[in-house]
């Protein structure tokens, strides 16, 4: 069985990935071993960059074969409007930074690190038709999918959203409508095929 670790940005991603449903999906449908202790939470994009090496080392100590880093793309327009916007907040900059870490053989020799850019994990909730959330357009392009999900569930709490949806959400269904979800799923499938 392939052992996989994850690095996510926030608590709601953590809740979805560690949920019994997702873990069972990984284990029984894809043949991937993971678990709550193998999901690390960067807690912000700036921290993701700052602590990336530590997070990876921690997973390496657990002897994972692959590491997936989920980076939120967020809404660039909104970020530009925000006066506090600075390069460390920019997902593209972060991705290129951590790619540099990843590809630098002197730093991290690990070649099995994949970076998945998502709009936000909430975009995948939109993409999962069974969750029945109304929206217009492509879930990977739409602005602020988390607001749409929040309005739908009438809550401001991301933890509450994740806790409500963790039993219903399916990555396979989301992959039907979201390119980023599909990329994630394909990559997960690919590594299991490679190993078997």
């Amino acid at each position, binding site marked *: 069985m392939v052992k996989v670790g994850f690095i996510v940005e926030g608590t709601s991603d953590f*809740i979805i990935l560690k949920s019994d449903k997702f873990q069972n999906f990984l284990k029984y449908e894809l043949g991937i071993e993971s678990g709550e*202790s193998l999901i*690390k939470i*960067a807690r912000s994009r700036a921290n993701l960059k700052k*602590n990336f090496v*530590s*997070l990876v080392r921690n997973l390496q100590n657990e002897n994972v074969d692959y590491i997936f880093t989920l980076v939120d793309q967020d809404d660039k327009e909104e970020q530009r409007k925000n006066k506090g916007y600075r390069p460390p907040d920019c997902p593209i900059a972060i991705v290129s930074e951590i790619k540099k870490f990843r590809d630098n053989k002197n730093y991290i020799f690990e070649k099995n690190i994949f970076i998945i850019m998502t709009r936000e994990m909430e975009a995948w909730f939109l993409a999962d038709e069974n969750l029945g959330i109304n929206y217009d357009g492509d879930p990977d392009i739409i602005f602020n999918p988390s607001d749409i999900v929040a309005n739908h569930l009438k809550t401001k709490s991301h933890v509450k959203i994740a806790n409500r949806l963790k039993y219903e959400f399916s990555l396979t269904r989301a992959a039907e409508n979201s390119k980023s979800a599909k990329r994630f799923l394909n990559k997960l499938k690919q590594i299991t095929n490679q190993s078997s």
Partner: protein
Amino acid sequence: MKEIIKEFVDGFKGLTKDPDIELSDKTFGNHSSNMLRFKIGEYITKFVIDKIKLGDIDSFLKDASNILTKTYQDSGLSHTNLNYFRKFYKKYRNQPDLAEKAFKLSWSHNVALLKDKLNDDERNYYLNRAIADNWSVKEIEYQIKNDGFDSFLNEIEQTNYRFNIKALRIKNYKSLVNINITEPTRLLVFAGANASGKSNIFEAVEFLMHSAMTTGTIAFNIFGGVENIVNFKALAENNQFLEIFLDLSFGKNNHNIRFGLKYDIKNKKLIREFTGIKELDEKIVDSFSRIFIDNIKRAENKLKIYNKLWIDASNLSSILKTIFKDEKKKEEIIEWIQILIPDIEKVSIEKDLSGKEELIVYEKSYPDKPFTGNLISEGTHNIIALLTLFYQADKPQFVCVEEPETGLNPAILSELIPFLREMTEKYNHHIWITTHSASLVAELSEKELIIVNKKNGATQTNQCKEGDFEKMRPDEAWLSNMLKGGGLPW
């Protein structure tokens, strides 16, 4: 008068065979110079007794010193020194052993030891240390000023009472199905999600202490009855034991003690167990405190010892009043309060109109309007309670503090860890705390942190090891799910 002085000076000549009196440590060595000084002191004292009508001794010695200094051309015979010779004789005349030690030291060292009103034990201690450790004159003065002798006595007392916690083992106490904490650091912090069982660990130790202080199974009643204390599953299975064991090692010789209890769930029998001691002595019971400031709920029914801070710190004023009788402790406490809450000028305990003792806090900005009772801020009250806790006994304490962060600014919390570490080093306390504060965790080293989590209703503990933080800030490592056991709510 002139005749008396002449008689004095004539008698002085007989003190030494040499025609010259040279009181120089360098030329003759400390011992013989000091012997001569002692002799001179004796001569002066006896002369003064014989010439009882001498009148003002001080002015007599002044005149005598003038003539002696001219006669012997030696500055060592100044009026001040003559007075010190008298004192020198007076202090050591009945203590030949001490005198022998004093003779070994230089005259300046001896003068430093004559300046203060020391009793024989104190003088003996300072003499011994000055000789053994080659103390400078300044060091002697510093040690006397700072009550080095008292510290020495405390040190002896502490050595007897100093203990190391080797291990804590708990089985089937509430959610603690099987907990082992081994070789904990003196400052130990338990972090974990709400309701993960952190408090149960402290409560189990408290239960152990209560059961040691009470007879039969009274402790069970105090803590809410067997069915609420014994782990639910263990109670249902009915063939297990509730166990709490604390391994301690006392003193320099590492005298190992194990004390604990075993409760046979099936036969409802409580057995107290001791290894290394016949029975539980005050050494252990006196050393334990559990504190959850202002948590009245947890203080319900608990044994309240009059001279110790109660679990909710509701007797803070009376304990602090006792501590404040010790000026040194008072000074240290006030200094800490001022460091942590700079706007506070001083703290005192005063009687209110009804005669009840009350905590009074004076702020720098309002020196005339002190704060009392409810007007004292939560944080200030907490800091004062914490300080009271650590200073309430002279002996090393095993203190369990729950959530000391309540009401405190994050910057103060960062300083709280160095403060707690100082308390463990200076007073040999063991300080265990539970916390939800990232600011507090941020200051810890790996070994000081225990992550607590609950799995399937059972509490688990994970002692962090060196390297676990992966060079990240400890709080970030904790909240990023990097530490074994997680300790996160979701």
